[in-house]
Structure formats: structure tokens, C-alpha cells
């Protein structure tokens, strides 16, 4: 019973739902602010994503005639729950909520669920714009999956799990012993590749082909309104946090103060830096890609970087 209560606490409050939502909204706000400042604007207040979310909750929810009601309303919740759960597997330096021997694959698959939820939700709305949007979303997913997988394999190889290959704990422990992954020069291409994977996974500016509001009316989200839309917006904010947290724990781990609170604060600060570096900056300086260019970019340039790193690591560097 006590165990269940702890699990509940983990899932609902600390590394789970509430923490993820809070930090996610913070990151989304900072992202918007930084992008605005980089464009020489004042920009919205940092709490703007929260206002957006609250406003959308208060709006009417319209379910179009062609939509499948259950899938249409259920999809954002599924995405939300899976995002809240991912944080349980990402070690916050020393602390992991569900300490398991192998969780990289779990993370990899859980991260695809919000995307799938978006696709299923959009698809179920019956709009042709959504049809095009989900097609692009899926191609984006295929595009970044290759470099993402290569990066994960590289890190797994470097950290060298003891019994099973893909262990986040092993990576955290390795970094605690040997310093951050980023200081290994063989890992730098992989880190750059990962930084480029994050914006595509989250769907920020140059890689937001799936939700291009100016050409295909926000793609999968075209028919969404009210609370489900708010949840989708929340999901993308949470994704920002989850992805940057993944980066931090893969490449910037190794900090152990012993106090979980201080650890968490340092962790969030690092996440903010990652967000600003890879999402806001790229957003501010580039325009949206075409879908086939996006695919080519990820399967050649980014995958090439990650592959180079994997080969270097495989050679024992």
C-alpha cells in the first residue's frame, strides 16, 4: 500500500505529471520569450503558456461531424499520460523514480506515444488538412528516429551497461564516475545530433512542417478546440521538458549534490539552457523546411554526425 502511495506521488507530483507540467510550461514560456528577444521584440510574459492553457480549458469544445468522438477526445489524454510517465524513467542525476535496469527503449517508445496520439487524434477528426498533417508528422518521426536511435546506441555503448544494454542508470552512474558525457570528445557529434533531434521531436519552428499553420491550418490540430487543444499544447510544452531532460541526463549528467531539491533545480536550469540553445535559437534564425528536405537533413547530416560518433565510440575512443 505504501508502495502504491509512493508510486502515486511519483506519477502525480514529483518527477511525474505536476513537475513535468510546471517545468514544461516554464520552458515553453522561456522559449517564447527568448525567441522574441532574439527577434528584437519584448515577447509574451513567461507565464503565457499557462494563460493559453487556462484559456483553452474555458473555451467551447467542438466535435466535428466527421470525427470519431472517442478517439478525438481520448488522444490528447493518452499523450499527456505517457509524457507524464516518461519523466519517471529519466534519472534526475542520481534520482530515478522507477529505478529499472533498462529504460532507454521504454523512453524511446514512450516518447513516440504523444506523436502517435497527435496522429490518431488528427486522423480521427476527418479533416483532409489533418490527413496531410499526420502524413508529415509521421515522416518527421521517421526522419528523426534514425539519428535518435544512433545517439542512444552511442551513449549506451559508451556507458556500457552491465547486464542489459540500454540502462539509464548505468549511464548516470558512468557519468558520476567519469564526468559528463559531453566532455568525451568522441561524444560531441552525437550531442550535436541530439540537439538537432530535439526540435524535430518537439516540433518547433524549422521542423514544424506537420503543424504548419500557414499552409495546412495547423495540420492534425485543425479541428481541435477547447480543452483537448489545450492538452495538446500542454503536451508539446511537456515534450520540450522531457526531451531536454533526456539530453541533460544523457550528456550532462554526473552532478551529485546529494540533495534532491538542489539536484532538481540544477537539472531544470540545465534543461533551460538546452531549450534555449537548441529550440529557441534555431527557431529564431531559420524558416520552416520542406518535408522532403527535413527527411534528407536528418537521414544524411544528423544521422551522419551520430554515426560518426557511434563509430568513434565503437573504436574505443
Amino acid at each position, binding site marked *: 500500500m505504501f508502495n502504491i502511495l509512493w508510486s502515486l506521488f511519483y506519477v502525480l507530483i514529483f518527477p511525474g505529471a505536476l513537475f513535468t507540467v510546471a517545468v514544461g510550461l516554464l520552458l515553453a514560456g522561456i522559449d*517564447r520569450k527568448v525567441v*522574441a528577444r532574439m*527577434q*528584437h*521584440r*519584448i*515577447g*509574451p*510574459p513567461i507565464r*503565457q503558456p*499557462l*494563460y*493559453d492553457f*487556462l*484559456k483553452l*480549458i*474555458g*473555451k*467551447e*469544445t*467542438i466535435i466535428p461531424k466527421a470525427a470519431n468522438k472517442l478517439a478525438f477526445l481520448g488522444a490528447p489524454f493518452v499523450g499527456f499520460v505517457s509524457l507524464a510517465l516518461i519523466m519517471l524513467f529519466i534519472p534526475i542525476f542520481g534520482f530515478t523514480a522507477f529505478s529499472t535496469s533498462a529504460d532507454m527503449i521504454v523512453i524511446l517508445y514512450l516518447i513516440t506515444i504523444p506523436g502517435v496520439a497527435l496522429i490518431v487524434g488528427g486522423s480521427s477528426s476527418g479533416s483532409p*488538412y489533418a490527413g496531410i498533417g499526420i502524413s508529415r508528422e509521421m515522416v518527421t518521426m521517421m526522419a528523426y528516429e534514425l539519428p535518435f536511435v544512433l545517439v542512444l546506441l552511442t551513449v549506451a555503448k559508451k556507458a556500457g551497461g552491465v547486464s542489459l544494454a540500454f540502462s539509464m542508470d548505468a549511464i548516470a552512474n558512468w557519468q558520476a564516475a567519469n564526468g559528463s558525457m559531453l566532455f568525451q570528445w568522441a561524444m560531441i557529434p552525437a550531442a550535436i545530433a541530439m540537439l538537432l533531434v530535439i526540435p524535430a521531436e518537439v516540433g518547433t519552428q524549422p521542423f514544424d512542417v506537420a503543424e*504548419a*499553420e*500557414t499552409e*495546412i*491550418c*495547423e495540420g492534425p*490540430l*485543425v*479541428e*481541435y*478546440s*477547447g480543452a483537448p*487543444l489545450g492538452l495538446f499544447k500542454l503536451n508539446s510544452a511537456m515534450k520540450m521538458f522531457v526531451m531536454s531532460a533526456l539530453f541533460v541526463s544523457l550528456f550532462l549528467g554526473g552532478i551529485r549534490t546529494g540533495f534532491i531539491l538542489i539536484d532538481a533545480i540544477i537539472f531544470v536550469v540545465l534543461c533551460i539552457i538546452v531549450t534555449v540553445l537548441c529550440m529557441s535559437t534555431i527557431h529564431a534564425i531559420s524558416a520552416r523546411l520542406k518535408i522532403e528536405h527535413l527527411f534528407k537533413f536528418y537521414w544524411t547530416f544528423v544521422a551522419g554526425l551520430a554515426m560518426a560518433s557511434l563509430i568513434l565510440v565503437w573504436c574505443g575512443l
Partner: protein
Amino acid sequence: MLKELLNKSSMKSPWIYHINSGSCNGCDIELVAVLTPRYDAERFGFKLTGTPRHADIVVVSGPITSQSKERLVRTLAQVPEPKCVVSLGSCPKSGNVFKGSYSVEAPLDNYVHVDVSVAGCTPKPEAIMEGLYKAAQILQEKREAMNK
């Protein structure tokens, strides 16, 4: 308290959907200018959306040609409540220089209640900002009215 926050947030994050019903593009350009660094409407949470389902404020420009009338009315119906309609420039309210043309069905008021009208041909971005801000306030009033 939560209710207040909800009410307040509806003013803090008004999303705009822009319908061009045969406008000469003058107003459209000025609307985009509102989002540029000089005027930066985003600091009040304004955001251009791609679909009426996300919108709080519908900005209509153009003299409502008879081709676009039906589409305009349909799109306006698809915006979820609470919503607010802003007419941009002189055209939607009256037809401007196109008034009386066989292909213009101008006054927007015939089809929907216009909450804020921004006059000018074209209005300056400052005026558009003012209009949008006023619309956001009306939005909050509507939201409060819904809660009662």
C-alpha cells in the same frame, strides 16, 4: 480564485484568426505588421492561428464579395464561443469604395455582430493593436457572462 484566473486568462491569450473576404491586402499587411518587432502584439498573447477552431478573435477584412460571403459566414460559425469579431478597415463595415457593386455584399453586421470596428483605409498598426486589445477585453466580459 480559479474562476478569476480563468476569466483573466481569456483576456491574456487571445488568438486571432484572420479572414480576408476580398480585401485589397492593405489591411492584411498591416495586420501582419502588428506582429512585427516594432508593434509586437505577441507581448499581450496575441497569436495568429491557422484555423477558426483555435481562434478567439476573428479579424475580417475586405468588402465581403459575394463569392466569399458564404465562406465567411461558414467560417465564422466554426469559431468556438466565446468569440469576438473585429472588422478591419472600412470595407467590411460598409463596402468602402466598392459600395453598391453587384458583387459586394458589404455590411458585415448583416451576418454577425461586430464587436470592434477599426476604421481606416488602411488603419495604422497602432490602431489595429488598440482594436485587438479592446476585443480581448470584450472577450473577458463575454467569458464572465458565460460563467454566470
